[in-house]
């Protein structure tokens, strides 16, 4: 499990790895706030996650709303593993995390 934030001149990239759930929700919020506060494009990488729970979904969704409200690009990149997307699909949550590549 891990959440890493890399900031470059152009963008802030948050990479999610392993199970991202209530145990790491506070950390994810901090990272997302920091990324959104940078004023650069925010990019969240989802291809390494093995589990996402509702706390992660709602944080990412709120961050996207915040970034887009401030006129920043917010991108969900990478394809989640099938097991994660189908688990979210059963709760009708996958459409909140549809990968949208700004490019």
């Amino acid at each position, binding site marked *: 499990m891990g959440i890493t934030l890399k900031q470059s001149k152009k963008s802030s990239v948050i990479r999610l790895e392993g199970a991202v759930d*209530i145990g790491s*929700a*506070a950390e994810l919020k901090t990272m997302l706030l920091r990324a*959104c506060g940078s004023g650069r494009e925010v990019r969240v990488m989802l291809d390494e996650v093995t589990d996402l729970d509702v*706390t992660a979904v709602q944080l990412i969704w709120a961050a996207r709303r915040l970034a887009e409200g401030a006129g920043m690009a917010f991108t969900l990149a990478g394809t989640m593993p099938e097991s994660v997307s189908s688990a979210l699909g059963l709760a009708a949550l996958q459409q909140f995390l549809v990968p949208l590549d700004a490019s």
Partner: protein
Amino acid sequence: MARKADQFKNAFREEAREVLVDLESALLELNENRGDAELVGRVFRALHTIKGSGAMFGFEDLAAFTHNLENAFDEVRNGRLKIGAELIDLTLAALDQIRAMLEESQAATPPVDQAVCAEILAGVRHLTGKPEKESAGARPAKPESDNGAGCEAGSGIDSGVDMDQIHEWSIHFAPGADFMLNGANPLLLLRELGLLGGLALRASMAAVPPLEELDPERCYLSWDMVLATSAERDGIRDVFIFVEDSCELTIEAVTSAASRSDRMTAAGEDPNSAQTNTASVNTADLTAKGLEDIRATSGGRRHYDAPDNASSLRVPAAKLDQFVNLVGELVTVQARLSEIVAQRDDVEIAAVSEEIERLTSSLRENSMNIRMMPIRATFEKFRRLVHDLARDLGKKVELTIAGAETELDKTVIDQLGDPLMHLIRNSMDHGIELPDLRVARGKRSTATIHLSARHSGASVLIEVSDDGGGIDAEAVQRRAVERGLVVAGTQLSERETFAMLFQPGFSTARQVTDVSGRGVGMDVVRQRVDSLRGSIDVTSQPGRGTRVTLRLPLTLAIIDGLLVSVGEACYVLPLANILECIELTLADIQRANGKHMANVREEIVPYIRLREHFNIPTPRPEIEQIMVVQTEQGRYGFVVDRVLGNCQTVIKNLGRFYRHVQLVSGATILGNGRVALILDPERLAEDAVRAISHCARGRPAGAALRAGR
């Protein structure tokens, strides 16, 4: 976090125990009515609940084990497997293992016997004819594998289910603030729900606050769903059983296509708007067609249900006890306030005091009501005992239950299990004859044990009766003489004879068996009933059967009483027993020629003068009061000097030293700080009758507040 998880596990244990009790009684009922589909459904739902929730709270072994049983009952539900004694016995044995698994991590509980578990599973597999790997390996953690994606197009519905029984339910589910912190996971719940049938759902982000204000450990999402299933409302509710207190949940039957789509649209705001927090259409669309198909097959059958407003809250019993204690204190203080106000001439304070009295009274009534529970669960658990014992003893016995809805105080119910168990064991072992002997005696080969409960005044009567051989009164008397309890040649009444049965170590059984005969059980019954301030009555007819009646107080906390005085002493009589209050003048006494009889509207009521009964030396007033009281022995009058008025009576124990005092059921503290004894009208009447019959036999009337048996 770990403590939270433990708390949640404990809550699961508590609720699972209740589900197991229901499961057990459903199984035993099913044993008697093997074709009852509703009972099969009840068993299946209970197993399903234990499995699903068990997995959710980390009881994986328990969930995997239960899964096998659930499979077996699914086969039964679909008509592929017939209910037989073997399946019932296996499932009952499995219940014991599930119980052990539930308690395993608790201290001082024996470990689960894996060998027994394996044996049970092998038995179940043998019945269902499923190969080992499929049955044993199917962990509920991966339910998709056995039921497909429950969410889509109704694929989760069993093929064997009659489409006529599919109904649609509109469900709104919004986890509360501490839902996630309690260890619950909404995704697992939704997946569980999907297993019940075709589920179309829409998630809403409407309540999610801006990121800065968002509490990362809270679930703000909510879901609106339409579920097409053969399960009933209770079955759906069962999925949420362990989280019901920490979420918002409504389940309504969908009555028309229009209302369903209204509901789904309302749930996700306007689907056409580009509002950022609106979820786009999702599986609902995929599922919509599936639902329409299901509806088409169902022959247009609709269910019109009343809106479900039932909601309940689980509160630890200790908190409730504390609450009732506080109410008790309040009642005592309020009595003191009323006393002080009565001595002053202040209209304003008097008005406030009256208001407080009124409020205290309704607060007391409410708090007492909260503690009241139906006796059903206690009664139902004896089905298993009777079933198992009958098998062990080679007897045929059916248990019938009446008045299971009778409510009594939780404390009383908690303490009732042991005495009832001993009475039933005794009945099964000594009372009921073997089938051959019964037939030889011209009785039905199947014996009946009847458990019943009913209210009588401020008491509850609980009866255990059987149609066995009855008690041999002569044998009891002989044994009593042998043990030196009575002098040989003493004439004992039936009541006195049977009272011997409850002496410690008393047994007429020639043989000590596993079930009874050591003479311990009945002593336990008496001690427990005494500690509850109850009484025991035994009647028996040789060859016809025995009936044991336990009379127990409705509550052990606070009662409505009538405060009376005799000389300087004050007493409380339970208001529930009192019929009326009439004057007793000297002229009345003369008219009765000195007999203790009062003429109440042409009806003769015998009375007891408490002054004489309690040896109170003060002179009696010219006009006395007769309290006419209804007892099991009929109507009696208790003569007192004055009636002082109503009194909310907080019952206090007299303590160990006075525990054998029979005529008094406790004491209470009055507003002026004095202590008043609470009289027990039943025992008072019994004592008076006994005193009169002893007088008739030439013995002096006993001292009134004598020690008991």
